[in-house]
């Protein structure tokens, strides 16, 4: 883990409010980990947590949605601008221990942390389900991994019309991985627990330190408060109190 000041190689819009930023890094991240990032001259105080979307040979890719002021600032940053990266942070996916067929379910910007994971998995054993409200993004990248990819959009403009959760036949999977809106993740975790399938979820909480020191980002689990930044962001669904 390090705090480095590095440079933006590329930062471009890929859909309404969705951007893709490539930065140089000396760090070697694992799927499911994240970085706390901040432009060198932004008028906001705290770095923002953003997941590893992709990584290859010193090039780290973020996929982010313009949410509030900080991510708006990110979207204004130009190529060659300096950026501060703290990371890689968090536990990441212990993907080498995944057994049997795996379903990867992403909703909206929740697809961000899943691409690099899918790249590390055996594509024959991996089905990817991506849900969006209207516009889709990153789908091509998932397809290029060789995994089976299914898409749903709420307004039906791409893939199936409806919720991504409706596409899944849980009985086919030994492991389910999810990241997306809280309601979606809760629904998936409940289904998996009922069906006794392993389920891992990537959580979000407001963060300050990102390293486990401030106790600002805790989530309740059956083992007490856990820090999303340090003990997570990946949690076993059965441990969560939802």
């Amino acid at each position, binding site marked *: 883990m390090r705090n480095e000041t590095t440079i933006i190689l590329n930062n471009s819009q890929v859909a309404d409010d969705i951007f893709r930023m490539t930065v140089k890094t000396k760090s070697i991240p694992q799927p499911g980990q994240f970085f706390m990032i901040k432009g060198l001259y932004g008028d906001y105080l705290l770095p923002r947590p953003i997941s590893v979307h992709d990584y290859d040979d010193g090039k780290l890719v973020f996929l982010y949605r313009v949410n509030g002021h900080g991510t708006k600032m990110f979207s204004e940053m130009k190529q060659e601008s300096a950026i501060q990266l703290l990371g890689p942070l968090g536990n990441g996916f212990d993907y080498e221990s995944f057994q049997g067929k795996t379903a990867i379910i992403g909703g909206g910007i929740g697809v961000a942390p899943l691409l690099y994971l899918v790249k590390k998995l055996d594509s024959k054993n991996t089905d990817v389900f991506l849900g969006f409200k209207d516009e889709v993004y990153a789908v091509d990248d998932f397809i290029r991994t060789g995994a089976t990819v299914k898409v749903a959009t709420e307004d039906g403009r791409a893939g199936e019309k409806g919720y991504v959760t409706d596409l899944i036949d849980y009985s086919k999977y030994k492991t389910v991985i999810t990241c997306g809106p809280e309601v979606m993740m809760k629904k998936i975790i409940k289904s998996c627990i009922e069906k006794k399938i392993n389920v891992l979820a990537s959580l979000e909480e407001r963060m300050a330190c990102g390293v486990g020191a401030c106790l*600002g980002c805790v989530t309740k689990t059956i083992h007490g408060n856990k820090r999303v930044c340090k003990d997570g962001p990946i949690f076993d669904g059965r441990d969560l109190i939802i």
Partner: protein
Amino acid sequence: MANISVDFLGINFKNPIVAASGTFGFGEEYHEIYDVGLLGGISSKGLTLKEKQGNEGIRLWETPMGLMNSIGLQNPGVESFIAAEIPKMKKHKNIIIANLGGNTLEDYLEGIRLLNHSGVDIIELNISCPNVKAGGMAFGIKAEVAYEIVKKTKQASKKPLMVKLSPNAENMTDMALACEAAGADALSLINTLNAMAIDIYRRKPVFNNIYAGLSGPAIKPIALRMVHQAAKAVKIPICGIGGISSGKDAIEFMMAGATLVQIGTANFVKADIIPDIIEEIQIFLDKEGIRDIKEIIGII
């Protein structure tokens, strides 16, 4: 090169920089980023006699150049701190300050008795906690109330006692004087300022407790004023806290009368800011031809 070590309560700090309570855990996490042995000292996460799970709901909220927090003193309790954390902290060879909170006099006293037999160097008494007997108003608001708690905890303490003042105190000068009169060995200030945020879409306060504590660069000018007031009032040494984010900020606090300074929220802004701050202090002194940092303490 200018000498940047300082003496505080008879203890030698290799430099005046201390990590602020609650922002640095027990140092382990930041040690993954840089050698925390570089610091003068570390003030532990606020401890209570018994383990606490802290507050529910949102715990952090960003404001213009500030941070509001409502952690609620989540901590493993004094005993677990002594058994599990002190041995790890000892490895880094910096001064260990145990930050102690409580809601009753008894809690404070019991915590101190346990810490008396531990390896901590200084006890930092956090009197910003709500006083359950006095209907929840913090111990650190009225000088008379603070006087009582400091007097009794000082009697119980075998360690040097540094009282951490709340900026919500009715009068900073009176508060500093009362704590000194009660026997405090040193003062640290300021803790966070009472503040509020509202989620206008949900039409609710952001925090479950309605108010929360404001820290960070936004409060620096207020903290500096309070440190100056306290330093003018008392003879005991002072540890300055509040929004310090650069070597220059640290120098301002020292000129205003602080012997040590603590760095809190700035650690979040740049995880390895403390080594930068130490370097900036060194550079400033050397450029200005100041041979020993002690020469500037309280010169204003």
